[in-house]
């Protein structure tokens, strides 16, 4: 098991490097730059600014300067918010965004697993039909639309929860944004869980368990859940990345103080440092979660540990 984890950690390093490289160059492919405003800057000012941020150097040299700084934990300066470094900006917004994303991740995963398992056990009976219908709604309605619907229905018409804003940590303000994030994640998880659970319930080893007279509860808890979780767990890594990126949009709609606002304006303003910094930090979080998922996978499936 230790050897397995070490191998997974080492294999994450080249992936991280490739991702950083790809982000860096793709961002530079986009037309425009951080200093293109509505009014063109005087040429000498522009040249000074470009020199200050090393933008006058050849791209490949800029790349090595950036990676070199990154290895020392320095994300560089923000090119639009002059008074802040990227690290400072991330520190302001990211904790909130992560809190939002991970809360939705945990709630959505649990809700999805339970709903999927219930659906599978009651396959083609009414609880299954109801759940499949709800899952469909969660899956097909895009988050920006769902956010608006939630605001309108629960925030304005019913007035159960505030439709937006953030008053220093009131839980009520979080209910709607988290719900919007939870729905698609829970939906996907439930769909996967339902399918794999139905498959597992039809396997020979579940038939063996029945023939031993173990009873439904023990068969589900001990024999069916673990193997049924396998495909679901491998989805959780990508699932979290959907959530974290989705939360950028949801934050905007609900006017929440996460990184989303800065990230979106940074992308529009070509604030290279901030966009890269955010993307790279996300990448590390997602790599870490995928690593965790792999470890859980190995625990669930003994065969994986040896390959």
């Amino acid at each position: 098991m230790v050897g397995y984890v070490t191998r997974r950690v080492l294999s994450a390093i080249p992936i991280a490097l490739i991702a950083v490289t790809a982000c860096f160059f793709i961002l530079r492919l986009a037309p425009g730059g951080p200093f293109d405003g509505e009014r063109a800057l005087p040429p000498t000012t522009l040249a000074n600014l470009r020199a200050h941020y090393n933008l006058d150097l050849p791209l490949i040299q800029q790349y090595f300067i950036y990676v070199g700084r990154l290895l020392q934990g320095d994300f560089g300066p923000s090119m639009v918010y002059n008074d802040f470094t990227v690290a400072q900006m991330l520190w302001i917004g990211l904790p909130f965004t992560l809190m939002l994303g991970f809360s939705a991740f945990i709630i959505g995963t649990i809700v999805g697993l339970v709903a999927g398992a219930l659906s599978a056990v009651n396959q083609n009976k009414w609880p299954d039909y109801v759940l499949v219908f709800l899952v469909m709604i969660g899956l097909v309605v895009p988050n920006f639309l769902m956010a608006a619907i939630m605001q309108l229905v629960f925030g304005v018409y019913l007035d159960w929860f505030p439709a937006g804003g953030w008053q220093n940590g009131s839980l009520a303000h979080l209910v709607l944004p988290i719900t919007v994030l939870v729905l698609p994640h829970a939906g996907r998880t439930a769909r996967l869980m339902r399918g794999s659970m139905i498959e597992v319930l039809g396997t020979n080893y579940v038939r063996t368990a029945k023939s031993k007279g173990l009873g439904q509860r023990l068969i589900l808890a001990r024999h069916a859940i673990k193997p049924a979780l396998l495909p679901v767990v491998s989805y959780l890594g990508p699932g979290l990345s959907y959530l974290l990126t989705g939360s950028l949009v949801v934050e905007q709609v609900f006017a929440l103080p996460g990184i989303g606002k800065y990230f979106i304006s940074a992308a529009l303003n070509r604030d290279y440092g901030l966009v890269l910094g955010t993307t790279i930090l996300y990448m590390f979080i997602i790599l870490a979660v995928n690593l965790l998922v792999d470890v859980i996978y190995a625990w669930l499936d003994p065969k994986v540990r040896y390959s």
Partner: protein
Amino acid sequence: MKQVLHVEDMSVTFALHNSEVHAVREMNFSLAQGETLAVVGESGSGKSQAFLAIMGLLAKNGRAGGRAMMEDINLIGMEPNQLDKHRGKDIAMIFQDPMTSLNPTLKIKTQLGEVLVKHRGFERDKAVQAATEMLERVGIPEPAKRANAYPHELSGGMRQRVMIAMALLCQPKILIADEPTTALDVTVQAQMLDLFKSLTEDFGTALVLITHDLGVVAGVADRMMVMYGGRAVEKGTTDDLFYDPHHPYTLGLLHSTPHIAKRAERLDPIQGLPPSLENLPKGCSFNPRCAFAFDRCLVERPPLAPTENGREKACHYEGPMAYGKVA
């Protein structure tokens, strides 16, 4: 001999989209303590479904009728939670494919131990210990180490031994083995049959051996029941059926089995295909493939009836049976 299972007029039907398929009809037999009954037939003859029905393991669209009395309890139509008091304890089943019949995510000791915890109320430690002893009993070397292994770390033969150990943990009155050797190497098959024989003798367990392989039956079974198209077509002792088959289908099966002592040039298979249960031939189900069929066989289905010499067959033909070039 004391009877441990008495099956009367049992039937199994499956509901399809807009029709019903009768997989088993009018099945009658009884099983005495310690006896070995072989149930023989081709794929689709209903032999497996009949016993899955007794174990309450039919697919969702399946329905069983009639009675399967284990002493004074009828296993057919019993609620699953009632049935669970007997499954694994009084009546156990071993399946065809040992590679997929064990849970890949659980250790062997867990899968064995839980049977004793459930039916005998053992503590977990004691259950694992008893399970390990049983593993030794079925001929698994280093049982303590194997008990700690996962199924994928064992070979097919080992896994089938584990299945046997699992089924016998509670010393059941009845053990149903559904094609227990089909998925195994020929060298392991013989060992497995010896194991069945010695263990069921030790525990006084009645064994039902479901198979299409008459070679398996010959050495082990006391009695045989031959099935075709969902019905029993001949019943009798193994010796009687082997040396003097009364039903043309039994004869056909015997001729399509390779025989080590005879130097036959070719095997003599039964011509044609097993019938579709949805669309059985009129009259005797076997008539399209039968060398002895005559006009009565095409219109009237022969019932399973006692013959003069005290055996049972379902066939109109009474003459001598010379079959192909071998007989």
